[in-house]
């Protein structure tokens, strides 16, 4: 195996070789299997064993609980609507077969574009899409038509990332951009009460609306629809595939914070922002939904843990992260309180703050520069 690879690589896939034009693709698979043999050429002679592949795989791992729960919940919600509960494994398998096509489309289209563009630029393939591709199926309704998903993924990867130079250069979260594209292009497949449960097949006895759609009608309406804090916390409610279970998301949050891959500052400040505006809302009588219930509804938890913390598109400075996270949480709840037509504010809150993150950082860095100049003139 090793011998074969060693002889194949320089002949076929090296630049100038017969299949040299496939160099980036070859390199991606080769370094995926084995750590590259490159040694340090300049600067520090030893390097930390972490690399971007490791960072990305940790985020993927952190997403696994939410994905597994989502698959089960897809089956469970379907069975609930059909009034037929055949058992845990049956529900999981049913959901698995609904979600796998979403994953296949997201990864084949997204990675296809990544590989092609790396090939055109003659660069190494970026690992960033491993995470985006893991997230995208989790933030869409399970019944979204696959061609729509393919189109949205292509749009997000090309115009959200590649035109700026690939992972690390983009300013909008590609996964959210994908969702935003779907939402604005095909609103009927993305919102309302008809889309959240797979194959409803005329089971009209159950509305299938998410808890959020009852937001504007108040807490009693949410309770009347059969949703309590605890079943929203556990995630046994309709919604996008991976966003419903706060428990599964918290497991992911623990992995991300423990490994230091995602910023706890963004998560904590986002929760603080949501609680603050949620509290203002109840204090001024805008809503009777308690602030803490906001945290378990809709995409807030998923967005806070997995998307607001995207290190590329969030604020880069430590102080900026507090501001950025707080504003995301606050904006999300503002949208929920004042936009009954479309109550899911998390997507737009994060995308909006993505565009403002550079400005926040600019303010933080220039105030630090001024502070330093002052300190010196005194000394």
């Amino acid at each position, binding site marked *: 195996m090793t011998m074969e690879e060693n002889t194949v690589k320089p002949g076929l896939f090296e630049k100038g070789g017969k299949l040299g034009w496939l160099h980036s693709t070859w390199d991606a698979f080769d*370094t995926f*299997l*084995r*750590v*590259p*043999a*490159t*040694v*340090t*050429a*300049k*600067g*520090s*002679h*030893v*390097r*930390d*064993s*972490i*690399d*971007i*592949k*490791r*960072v990305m*795989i*940790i985020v993927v791992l952190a997403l696994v609980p939410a994905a597994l729960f989502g698959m089960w919940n897809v089956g469970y919600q379907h069975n609930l609507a059909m009034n037929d509960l055949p058992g845990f494994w049956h529900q999981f398998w049913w959901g698995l077969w609904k979600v796998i096509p979403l994953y296949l489309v997201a990864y084949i289209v997204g990675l296809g574009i990544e590989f092609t563009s790396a090939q055109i630029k003659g660069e*190494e393939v*970026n*690992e*960033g899409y491993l995470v985006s591709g893991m997230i995208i199926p989790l933030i869409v309704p399970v019944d979204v038509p696959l061609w729509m998903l393919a189109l949205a993924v292509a749009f997000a990867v090309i115009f959200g990332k590649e035109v700026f*130079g*690939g*992972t*690390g*250069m983009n300013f909008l979260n590609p996964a959210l951009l994908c969702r935003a594209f779907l939402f604005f292009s095909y609103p009927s497949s993305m919102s309302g009460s008809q889309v959240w449960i797979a194959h409803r097949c005329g089971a009209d006895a159950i509305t299938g609306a998410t808890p959020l759609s009852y937001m504007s009608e108040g807490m009693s309406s949410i309770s009347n629809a059969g949703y309590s804090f605890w079943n929203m916390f556990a995630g046994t409610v309709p919604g996008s595939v991976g966003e419903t279970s706060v428990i599964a998301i918290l497991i992911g949050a623990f992995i991300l914070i*423990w*490994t*230091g*891959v995602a*910023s706890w500052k963004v998560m904590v400040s986002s929760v603080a922002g949501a609680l603050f505006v949620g509290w203002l809302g109840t204090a001024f009588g805008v809503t009777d939904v308690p602030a803490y219930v906001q945290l378990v509804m809709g995409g807030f938890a998923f967005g806070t843990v997995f998307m607001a913390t995207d*290190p*590329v598109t*969030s604020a*880069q*400075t*430590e102080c900026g*992260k507090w501001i950025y996270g707080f504003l995301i949480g606050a904006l999300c709840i503002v949208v929920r309180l004042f936009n009954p037509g479309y109550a899911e504010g998390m997507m737009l809150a994060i995308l909006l703050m993505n565009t403002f993150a550079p400005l926040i950082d600019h303010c933080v*860095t*220039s105030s*630090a*520069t001024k502070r*330093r*100049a002052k*300190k*010196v003139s005194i*000394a």
Partner: protein
Amino acid sequence: MSNNIVLKKGLNIPISGEAALETMRTIAPDVVAVKPTDFKGFSPRLMVKEGDKVLAGSPVLADKQNPDILLTSPVSGTVKEIVRGEKRKLLAVLVKAEGNEAVDFGAKDPKGLKAEEVKETLLKSGLWPTIIQRPYGVLANPAQTPKAVFVSAFSTAPLAADSEFVFKDDLAAIQAGITAISKVAKVHVCVNSETSAFAKLQDAVLHTVIAKKHPAGNVGVQISHISPIMKGETVWTLSLLSLAAIGKLFLNGKLDLCRKVAVTGPAALKTGYVVAMPGTPMSALEGCFDPAVETRFISGDVLSGENIGKDGYLGFFDNQVTLIKEGREREVLGWANPLRFNQFSSSMAYFSWLLPKKKYNMDTNTHGGVRAFVCSDVYGKVLPMDIFPVYLVKACLAGDIDKMEQFGIYEVLPEDLALCEFVDPSKNDIQAIIQDGIDLMIKEMA
């Protein structure tokens, strides 16, 4: 002793091969190299030709811009070879060591000297280039008087030589050196504890740095906490090695660059100290390394030292040689392996935090491919300065002078951001980027 500097950020890289506190031997090399490349900003003009006789302290090279600045031979002997590289760049002058004669510069009591006399003696003896001027880390300009002179009396670099052990017998010389330099400008000395042997030095302002992690021993970090360098200011820095040489010059009237050099690193068969002088060939370390293993010879530490190769020569500013293995092995699925107990990572993404006392046999593998900057919070954790490292690096990459100024290019040298480079998951050559930025500043601001 009232000036305390408390630093919390940083990282100690747990690399194996710390030098045992014993002197193994004194190396009397056959050939010694005078390397102009050790001195940033020095453009060499030859003052000798092959076959010329030189004494210890005889000028070998002069700076083209400022011909008063000389590099002198550390030994007496004959000029054996002038080594040139690409485009005839002068790399080294090799001197075949013979005899023990030295130029007599005249012993002087540093207490009674004037600033001009100190400068003149340093220029003539070839010790002027031991002074590093900041910003930019270049040769000091003899016509300028700096804001202050800074000395770090301890090193926190990986496997660095133990200052207390190395300079045990040189305290009087270091004191004489400080007294002499204090005639030119105010001297600040940073020590790592109030009980340090260097805490008794006179004629200097003492600061105690309370810190356990690298880069607290870097003079750049210390300056930024004592008196940050702003636009238009210059400061000088001197190492203890340089001060000891300056002190010996004034006390004995002769150039004496001998030093205890730590032989360290995971690929060293035997660690310890040898007495050697700058320009000593690595072949003199025979027995300390395994010729069958592809070994990288680093003059200095693993973060900022220079890869000099097995035929190289000890750098002028170094009292440490680090030997590490070239890491050309390809680990299968390395990035995915959850355990990987033999690889160190400062992040919690691996499990090396479970073994806080373990020392690692590190090699030179990059452990990954180069990517754009993705993570934003790993760099600040290892840099105890009021600086945004990624912003500074990006300003350097963009060649934006205003932004480089704003983000503190005057305060840093590549070595200060070496740990940022170590921890970088995107594997960028941050030190090289900073050096390019500094070179651009020198060009544009000249």
